[in-house]
């Protein structure tokens, strides 16, 4: 064989492979997500699903409703919203978005690929008071839930609005997020109130095609790990929905599973997480404060995006296990102030569907452990969730106020807060 021919045999396939890859990556076609993976994906709380868009889009275009929150979503007992919806053949299915460490800012970025799917739809959003710590979201936790696809999608529509500028600034505060300097420069331009250059726009468009194809392709790899848990929990429920019967069941389940500690905390959680440490935790939380935090402005990003999408959202403020709070010295007065502040931010801007459970912390078996909803808590939430999602609701009227992005609002506390809120 001549040596030129041999070279062709070696490099010919390489050249062809590169050409196919280029066509695949930059051309604007779409691969469809296999609908069979949706039930599993909706309860997986997988970080790849959260960071991607293909699976979320496919689900929300069907009868799935975004349930956004954090670690409480993984407390899957028989009264968990995903179990109830399946067992009682509701018209909706929850799509769980978020897990431990996903706070407002992560949710804002995770919404970027699904804004169109959220438009004029409904959603449920569980606000954890524990997010509102002094420093706000931990940059490492943020990086875990953040992806280039989110920012590229956002850059396609980002403009000079207060929301986009604030989001860009927050992004730049999280260090070492991008290995891609073009993206970093583009975010910096938005942060300084400019729009993208033509080169940046072209790059964003090409990169978007590449990343979304990657995302669509890798959705094939999604592994279903939790459907069996849901099925097991469904078996424990009676065939017809009866609130007081279910409440009794929830009570019994709670009682059965909280026998090794005086705080009505789930046995397994107690054994693994608290038993060793709880002695040192007495009065440890007396100086916890959820009233001044950058999280309020991050949360404003979420509200602003919801308003822009005209999404009707049911906000949930979950309780805290009261006997545990008493033991750790967590101030209930501070929690009441937090409650007042967050509700003010919601109501002032037209978000009036709020389930405030913050005073239910002393109900028996309402919490599965210290701060996470469980048995009876989930059931009570269902009393609001079901009608909200299955009945027609009044069209909300939003009026976004950029004041809620300000440092002043983030840190507002004490008397000055009272003056504003009351």
């Amino acid at each position, binding site marked *: 064989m001549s040596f030129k021919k041999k*070279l062709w045999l*070696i490099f010919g396939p390489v050249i062809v492979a590169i050409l196919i890859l280029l066509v695949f990556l930059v051309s604007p076609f779409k691969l469809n997500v296999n609908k069979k993976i949706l039930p599993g994906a909706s309860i997986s709380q997988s970080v790849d699903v959260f960071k991607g868009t293909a699976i979320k889009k496919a689900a929300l275009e069907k009868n799935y409703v975004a349930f956004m929150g954090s670690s409480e979503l993984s407390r899957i007992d028989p009264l968990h919203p995903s179990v109830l919806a399946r067992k009682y053949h509701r018209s909706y299915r929850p799509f769980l978005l978020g897990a431990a460490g996903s706070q407002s800012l992560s949710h804002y970025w995770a919404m970027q690929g699904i804004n169109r799917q959220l438009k004029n739809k409904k959603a449920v959003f569980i606000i954890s008071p524990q997010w509102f710590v002094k420093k706000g979201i931990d940059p490492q936790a943020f990086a875990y839930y953040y992806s280039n696809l989110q920012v590229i999608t956002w850059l396609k529509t980002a403009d000079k609005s207060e929301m986009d500028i604030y989001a860009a600034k927050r992004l730049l505060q999280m260090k070492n997020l991008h290995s891609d300097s073009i993206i970093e420069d583009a975010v910096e331009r938005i942060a300084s109130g400019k729009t993208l250059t033509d080169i940046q726009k072209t790059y964003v468009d090409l990169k978007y095609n590449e990343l979304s194809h990657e995302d669509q392709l890798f959705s094939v790899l999604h592994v279903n790990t939790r459907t069996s848990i849901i099925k097991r929990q469904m078996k424990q429920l009676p065939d017809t929905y009866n609130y007081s019967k279910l409440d009794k069941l929830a009570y019994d389940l709670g009682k059965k599973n909280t026998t090794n500690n005086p705080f009505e905390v789930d046995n397994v959680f107690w054994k693994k997480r608290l038993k060793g440490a709880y002695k040192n935790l007495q009065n440890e939380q007396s100086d916890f404060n959820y009233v001044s935090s950058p999280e309020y402005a991050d949360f404003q990003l979420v509200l602003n995006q919801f308003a822009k999408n005209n999404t009707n959202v049911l906000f949930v403020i979950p309780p805290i296990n009261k006997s545990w709070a008493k033991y750790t010295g967590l101030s209930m007065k501070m929690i009441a102030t937090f409650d007042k502040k967050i509700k003010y931010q919601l109501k002032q801007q037209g978000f009036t569907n709020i389930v405030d459970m913050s005073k239910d912390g002393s109900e028996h078996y309402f919490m599965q452990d210290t701060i996470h909803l469980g048995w009876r808590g989930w059931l009570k939430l269902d009393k609001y969730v079901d009608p909200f999602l299955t009945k027609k609701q009044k069209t909300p009227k939003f009026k976004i106020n950029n004041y809620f992005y300000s440092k002043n609002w983030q840190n507002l506390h004490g008397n000055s807060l009272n003056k504003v809120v009351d």
Partner: protein
Amino acid sequence: MINMQPYENPEYFLWLSLALLPIIIGLLKGKRWRIYETIVSFAFLFLIFDANKFVQGLALIGYVAFEMCLMFAYFKYRQKRNDTWVFVIAVLLAIFPLVIVKITPVFEHGAASIIGFLGISYLTFKIVGIIMETRDGMIKSLDFLKVLHFILFFPTISSGPIDRYRRFIKDYDTVPSVEKYVNMLGKSVHYIFLGFLYKFILAYYFGSVLLPQVSALALAHGGISWYLVEYMYVYSMDLFFDFAGYSLFAVGTSYAMGIETPMNFNLPFISKNIKDFWNRWHMTLSFWFRDYIYMRLVFFLMKKKLVKNKVNLANLGYLTLFLIMGFWHGVTWYYIVYGLFHACAIIICDVWLRFKKKHRDKIPSNRFTKIFAIFLTFNLVCFSFLIFSGFLNTLFFMKH
């Protein structure tokens, strides 16, 4: 500033192929453009150690200056005299920076030493090899630029394979014939594409998709569970495909430059026993340990008649080799237990092989026994990787 870690993403391969193109054309024309090669090497080194890796870059420069002085001083000395103690001191000095880097995290709560940099272990192996062969009188000349080119050869700088000076220089000094070089190019492309399959598809699937899930399940369950068994296999697959993929890139790149860097893996999961495994797994490392530690130690002990019994001698050699390998991986209990585990496995394997030799007629050997041997070895190896992963440490000794 742009920073590029070796083989990390498609962009790297784009720049790499552009940089290699002139070298390839040159070699096809029967010419080696050494100055251009040096410039390319330097550029890629610079891109590894610039920007936020700047401190590592300084550490590298300091390290290389120190080791170069050491090697040349010893070489010069060896031309006149050959005292054992000078040799011992030279080797100790050569590994001194690596020892510091390995020990620092133990005393500094896991913080990395500032004199460390990506690839320090692999550079040290190459340098100690040069010193030992100088001692044996096998290296007759030491050229400053060639030594530098050898230890800083950019395709293999971060994680090997570990080449040998004499072998490398033989390739570097010659230009392969066009027929041979075209064959090498074919292999180069084959290796790099196999590497893509290993590293970016299989290792990604095992390491980035499956591993976090089984790891979370195993941690949530706690203690010993089936999830832990799953973790063991998934981790083993990830470890192999990640490292073998990386090695294929390094070998493939070397071949395109007309350098036949030795292979690192040869189907390790079909090994019929642990000894066979170490002839197939991370080969350049295990051969390095075999040639420079095990054989030299055994040679020394046998010559001085310090240990009479041959079996004891071999076992002592294994224990020393694998303990050093354990410590080299890092000063933590699980790396050291990993080393001891393999030493014991090889000692038991030797007992069995001797027994088998004696009773050859009575022990059956058929397809089933062969498959069973492979199955047993595979599981033993995966178990050792579970120890190696440090996951047991997280599972049992850390709060989560």
